[in-house]
């Protein structure tokens, strides 16, 4: 690149930014940082992968025991155990991506204050690392699907759509949280509570069908609910599973969910872009 004649011309330096420094460099850096982080988790210790799989599996085992033996949720929905594991893994991605991203810029203070690179790489690398983990965990989910005899259906092919919707939402949330946390250090603490609330406000451990009508409509306004419900419809064929519109009892909650989804995305991009040039000074 340095051999291009244009390199000799004086060009204005625009200062630090979310994306500055060339698209090529951005993606290479994003890839390298996520792979590095991923390797560290999985190959750092002998049982790296096993340990990281243990967490969702243990959680799964406990919840399965409680909700099939104590609350008898297993009878309400076909293949409850598979659905539960699938939901835990999927929400685990959102949780890992966002909770990891909150403090990511602060954690990388050393490089933010000492060198120049596209700031956006930091939170997005966390999301990408979480995506790698999700990929590995999904293998286990499919093994379970096979073992528990879930019928393969053509709608499995639509899973990438679910993933994309969740990925965009997680990335935007990660950007919003990581930028805000530089200014207000208690965002990280607030997010722990909010993420837990979201965990229960999304049909993960319970199927949407057992939720009382009025509350169901409210839950549908949570942007994660339609994503998880649609995933349920597409992954496990069950005539009892309600479609989005039926569950929402009309288009209004879905519109609210869509508005929140778009708002978070726009806000995430806007806030990060606005904060990026000043992040180094505020650390």
């Amino acid at each position, binding site marked *: 690149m*340095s051999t*291009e004649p244009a390199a000799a*011309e004086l*060009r204005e330096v625009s200062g630090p930014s979310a994306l500055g420094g060339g698209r090529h460099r951005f993606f290479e850096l994003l890839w*390298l940082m996520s792979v590095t982080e991923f390797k560290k988790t999985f190959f750092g210790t002998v049982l790296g992968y096993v340990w990281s799989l243990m967490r969702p599996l243990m959680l799964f085992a406990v919840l399965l025991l409680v909700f099939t033996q104590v609350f008898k949720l297993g009878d309400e929905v076909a293949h409850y155990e598979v659905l539960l594991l699938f939901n835990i893994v999927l929400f685990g991605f959102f949780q890992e991506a966002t909770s990891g991203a909150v403090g990511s810029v602060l954690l990388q203070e050393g490089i933010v204050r000492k*060198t*120049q690179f596209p700031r956006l790489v930091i939170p997005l690398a966390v999301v990408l690392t979480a995506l790698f983990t999700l990929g590995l965990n999904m293998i286990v989910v499919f093994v379970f699907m096979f073992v528990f005899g879930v019928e393969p259906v053509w709608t499995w092919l639509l899973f990438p759509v679910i993933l994309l919707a969740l990925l965009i939402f997680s990335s935007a949330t990660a950007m919003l949280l990581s930028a805000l946390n530089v200014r*207000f250090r208690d965002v990280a603490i607030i997010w722990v509570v909010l993420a837990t609330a979201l965990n229960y406000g999304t049909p993960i451990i319970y199927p949407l069908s057992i939720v009382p009508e009025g509350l169901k409509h409210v839950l549908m306004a949570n942007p994660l609910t339609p994503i998880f419900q649609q995933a349920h419809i597409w992954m496990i064929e069950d005539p009892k599973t309600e479609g989005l519109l039926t569950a929402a009892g009309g288009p209004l909650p879905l519109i609210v969910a869509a508005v929140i989804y778009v708002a978070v995305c726009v806000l995430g991009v806007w806030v990060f872009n606005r904060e990026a040039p000043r992040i180094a000074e505020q650390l």
Partner: protein
Amino acid sequence: MITPATAIAAARSSEAGSLNRYAPPTPVTYLPSLTVPAPSNPIAIEVTGVEKAFRIPTHKVDSLKERLTTFSQPDFRVLHALRDVSFEVERGEFFGIVGRNGSGKSTLLKILASIYAADSGRVRMAGRLAPFIELGVGFNQELTARDNVELNGVMMGLTRRDARSRLGAVLEFAELEEFVDLKLKNYSSGMLVRLAFSMMIQSDAEILLIDEVLAVGDASFQQKCADVFNEIRDSERTVVFVTHDMSSVEQYCHRAMLLHDGRIEAFGEADEVARRYLRLNFEQAPAGDSDMGGIADVTLADVWLENGDGSRITNVEKGAALRFGAVFEAREEVEGPSFGFSFVNADGVEVTGFGLGLSGDVPDRLEPGQRVRLSGEIENRLAPGRYVVKCWVHREHNYANLVLHSPHVLDFVVFGKADAGVVALDHEIEARVDGS
């Protein structure tokens, strides 16, 4: 190919030669070959009217809770780090920026490096830039040297393939070939620094921004670094170099700039700027808040330095006559007092010290209210730098019976050109050809 810039560089290096600057006898090439396009413009960096102010909150609100519960606007004072700074650096120039702490030189470097955004003004650059605010930024302790070279290279703007292809050259220069697959957490600090310096010179950028990273590693590696700096100085690369060390400014820089309170105080020949820096430094150095004893049985009533004429000074030129004086006052009766002073340099090394009392050179006994005056000449062999004077008093000539101990009674600066070491000893060394 003779371009205006090479002509300038050639003229400078011949001028440099007349000043007895170090030049390696056989030029070794450590730098990767760099194809620099024919300069259509001799200016590499153009800075126009750059301003930067930081808002320092008197009470920092950094939580949402505080922001929501504090109704008044948060108080802050404005620190003007840079005021209307404009200058140009020519292509191929080794350009120094000097200034005291807080003069704005690091802020300026960070603006040039796109780490901070300027409030106003314009910065333009010709060519790719690599900043080195600190050596080894972004090194990951958990990764091997191989992976780190790749990660660091990409961070500095190389492509992954480019970064990988430089691995050999980086390790060779750093003399770390055997340790390529060792994780950095197992490296010694010297090895880390060598790897980082090596990364820097392999970064392949036309413009390098360097913040005081010289003098790394052992003596032989330092010599290698000095060779590289000389090579960079005479190459087409442009370097902006921020430092406190005036001897390296004089050694490497073509031109330099002195920043003071965010303004350009001097600009031009490196030697002249270095002199201005030293003058500024000794004129403005504060006498320091001396801690005059405490509740001890003996207090230090006065302590001072004076020059050969007997007038009090706070700073002294290297090698100039230096006299020392102190007055102690006893509050209680003190039997067999001993007095001691020592001079500690900026690195915390006790360079010299002296004591009185054991050989009967002070009274055997101090009555309450009685004063003792110590004064005399000190042989001034101190190397340039800042010194802090420590003081202590014992009772009954016994180190265990401390009556006064003050770690900082006085500080002063020795100014002048720095040589190696902490003291300057007289020497009579001559060179003679064997066998004649």
